[in-house]
């Protein structure tokens, strides 16, 4: 039944289009002119439409900026995140200014210079002075933007990690696992050939650094304490994306990647600001298979005392793998 209805609608649409075409052809036959010749009247209608729709577009963009303002980057909760956000504000400001100059200009010109039969366009093929200006000015602005961008990138990527807590984030279809480095703050070696159902990350238990490592399905961080995340993947490329911390890094099988940052807001503080539902979430942001859309892990930022209580509940790999048989 529905298929018949769809077919009927399709036929009706086509019939309507044929009729529109016919009518426009007949009308112009009556007026004795070529139906497809663009007349002054057309130019006027289309020119005015340019202004109307162009204005409508600007209003639509402004409406979005106001209505969805809260979506413009979730609040940053890391030290480098604040720097990135300042760069974002400068770039976004620049973009919006240019957008709100150039787009109205385009639609305004289209309206203002719409064709009239007795008008002639102004023959204006080039002007070196103008062209130099609009090459040099963007170059200068961009130079500033590039330098600012590279500085921020440098701060982000080359953070001091000497005192950072080391945590491994391990991805596989479609689950994240975290490994805390334990009291020595050193991760034990690992090899994919060592992966068993019990030793899910393939940790080399011969390595003495491995004994105190702890596995978890959520990550707890101490506020204002630098952390160094190291990433591995077991199967395909995943991407660890922590939007609130302004952190993202691919997890690549056969390769170790890393990202260091310092969280500045506890989960509790964020809940007060953003609502009680708030949680820091690690998302997968690289297409990794059917359940890619649901590959997540919770992050919790808390005080040192809260962290100590939590970490104490986790057993070490030594206890898990060597003593429990």
């Amino acid at each position, binding site marked *: 039944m529905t298929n018949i209805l769809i077919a009927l609608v399709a036929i009706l649409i086509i019939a309507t289009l044929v009729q*529109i*075409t016919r009518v426009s052809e007949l009308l112009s036959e009556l007026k004795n002119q070529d*139906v*497809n010749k*663009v007349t002054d009247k057309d*130019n006027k209608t*289309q020119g005015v*439409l340019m202004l109307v729709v162009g204005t409508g577009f600007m209003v*639509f963009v402004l409406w979005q900026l106001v209505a*969805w303002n809260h*979506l413009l980057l*979730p609040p940053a909760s890391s030290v480098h995140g604040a720097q990135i956000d300042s760069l*974002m504000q400068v*770039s976004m400001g*620049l*973009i919006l200014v240019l*957008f709100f100059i*150039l*787009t109205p200009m*385009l639609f305004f*010109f289209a309206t203002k*210079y*719409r*064709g*009239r039969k007795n008008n*002639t366009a102004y*023959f*204006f*093929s*080039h*002007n070196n002075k103008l*062209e130099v200006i609009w*090459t040099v000015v963007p170059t200068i602005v*961009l130079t500033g*933007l590039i330098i600012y*961008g590279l500085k921020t*990138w440098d701060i982000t990527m*080359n953070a001091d990690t000497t005192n950072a807590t080391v945590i491994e984030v391990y991805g596989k*279809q479609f689950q994240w696992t975290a490994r805390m480095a334990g009291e020595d703050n050193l991760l034990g070696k690992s090899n994919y*050939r060592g992966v068993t159902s019990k030793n899910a990350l393939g940790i080399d238990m011969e390595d003495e650094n491995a004994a105190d490592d702890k596995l978890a399905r959520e990550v707890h961080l101490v506020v204002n304490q630098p952390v160094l995340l190291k990433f591995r993947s077991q*199967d*395909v*490329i995943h*991407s660890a*994306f922590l939007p609130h911390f*302004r952190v*993202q890094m691919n997890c*690549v099988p*056969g*390769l170790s*990647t890393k990202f260091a940052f310092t969280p500045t807001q506890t989960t509790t503080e964020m809940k007060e600001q953003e609502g009680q539902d708030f949680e820091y*979430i690690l*998302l997968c942001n*690289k*297409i990794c*298979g*059917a359940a*890619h*859309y649901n590959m*997540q892990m919770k992050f919790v930022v808390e005080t040192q005392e809260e962290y100590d209580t939590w970490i104490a509940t986790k057993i070490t790999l030594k206890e898990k793998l060597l003593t429990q048989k």
Partner: protein
Amino acid sequence: MSDHHKETFITKYIFCQDHKMIAKQFLITGMLMAVVGMLMSAIFRVQLANPGETSILYNLLPGSWLNEAGVLNPDKYLALVTMHGTILVFWVLTAGLSGTFANFLIPLQIGARDMASGFLNMLSYWFFFVATVVLVSSIYVESGPASSGWTIYPPLSALPQAIPGSGTGMTLWLVSITLFVVGSLLGGLNYIVTILNLRTKGMSMQRLPLTIWAILFTAILGVLSFPVLLSCGLLLIFDRSFGTSFYLSDIIINGEMLHNTGGSPILFEHLFWFLGHPEVYIILLPALGIVSEVISVNSRKPIFGYKAMVGALMLIAFLSFIVWGHHMFMTGMNPFLGSVFTFTTLLIAIPSAIKVFNYLATLWRANIRFTPAMLFAIGTVSAFITGGLTGLILGDSALDINVHDTYFVVGHFHIVMGLSAIYGMFAGVYHWFPKMYGRMMNKHLGYLHFWGTFICAYGVFFPMHFLGLAGLPRRYYTNSAFPMFDGLSDINSIITFFALAGAVVQTIFLFNFFYSIFKGTKATQNPWKSNTLEWTTPIERIHGNWPGEIPSVHRWPYDYSKPGADEDFIPQTVPLKEGEKEH
């Protein structure tokens, strides 16, 4: 050349060596694929707006793609996204756009009887055709078509255990793209050779229309970068079928420990994006070329800053080869390398800005004639501004951290590359339709098509920026798995509404196109009062383009509204008057 040989149905319509017919073959194949790609996007937009529900549109899909409740399966959602991307990027905006207008315009606008090699040109279409058949057939494979995104990153694309689409579907995808690359190389070499060698008397490089300049740079980009995609794909075929480890290392998939060690998926990404980024400009440049021509003709004004326009095209083409790393900022590459790619990427803003300012200067004090082609050309400039500006965010490695692979990227490239190019393509079709079929497309339907498309397209893609800034990743089957995205469902509904409306609007174009081929009003020889050479050929198509001698060229193509002339255009074939300066 053409006067004496007899054309049968087969040599005229199927195995035809006439560039004009080959162009039409590319155009119609591209249009059919565009319909397929657009329907796919309509279907996955429905899933995004109403996750977990069934829809009438799903009747278009093979039954095995749905679960018992009639809901789209998550891996088939990815298949749709992958095929949509592949079809639109390669089939519609590369072959459909370049294949059509390079073939159609090069000989006509430079004054040649045909391409340098008509036979290679024909082969180029037929390779493309076979590639199309293979790609479409992959949709009906039992395990489904390729599903690892159009960028087919291994290991996901290399391992059938990782996602069903990486089985036979992926093999067919790779075969198809290999054929596609062969076809596009045959075409590209032909374009370059023809433009350099077969220009008519007086058609110096400084007198080439900007369409031809743009196509020349496009062809050069294609010839230099497509072979890299080919080798990139070949290595993937080796990894998939012959047990090599170019891209694979240390993998356990579905409990199976693979033997591969020492390879790197990042190598694949480097090779892929070495094509992938120039590809963006392979798509965009022909559209910008078409738009330059259409804007100048319909503004009745010379294009402003012809030399700067050529220079900007050249600079964009060059820079496009040294920016591929900005797709890979988050792969863990050396931060210094990231800095280099940020620097080169942001430089592209300079030639892009020049182009925008020059378009605006062309419109200033013009006498604009709003043909449907002109509307779409203005639409291209608008999309190029809107989409180009957000590139300043994505190209900046520090800012990319938070918008990488989110809907911000989807919004950005759909506007700057998708919309600009497809508007350019529409502008080209409306503008050269009289030359292609000897008839006119209906103006009123053209107006309706433009405004419908323009409004719906911004309704679809502009809100995506906000989704992306909120952190929503692309290629998610649904965003209902994360409470933090619950507030975004309204935006998703708005986007889907506009996407479906926009798809319906395209029927106006399809109708207008096919109706006008047979029933459109007859075209006059030079309906737009244009200067370029194609409008000096007869209305009826002949193999060889000009019945007599090929005309000589005496001036550049942009003498519109030149002071002292009788009319507001002076065709390139008119000699300079005594004491007249060229421009």
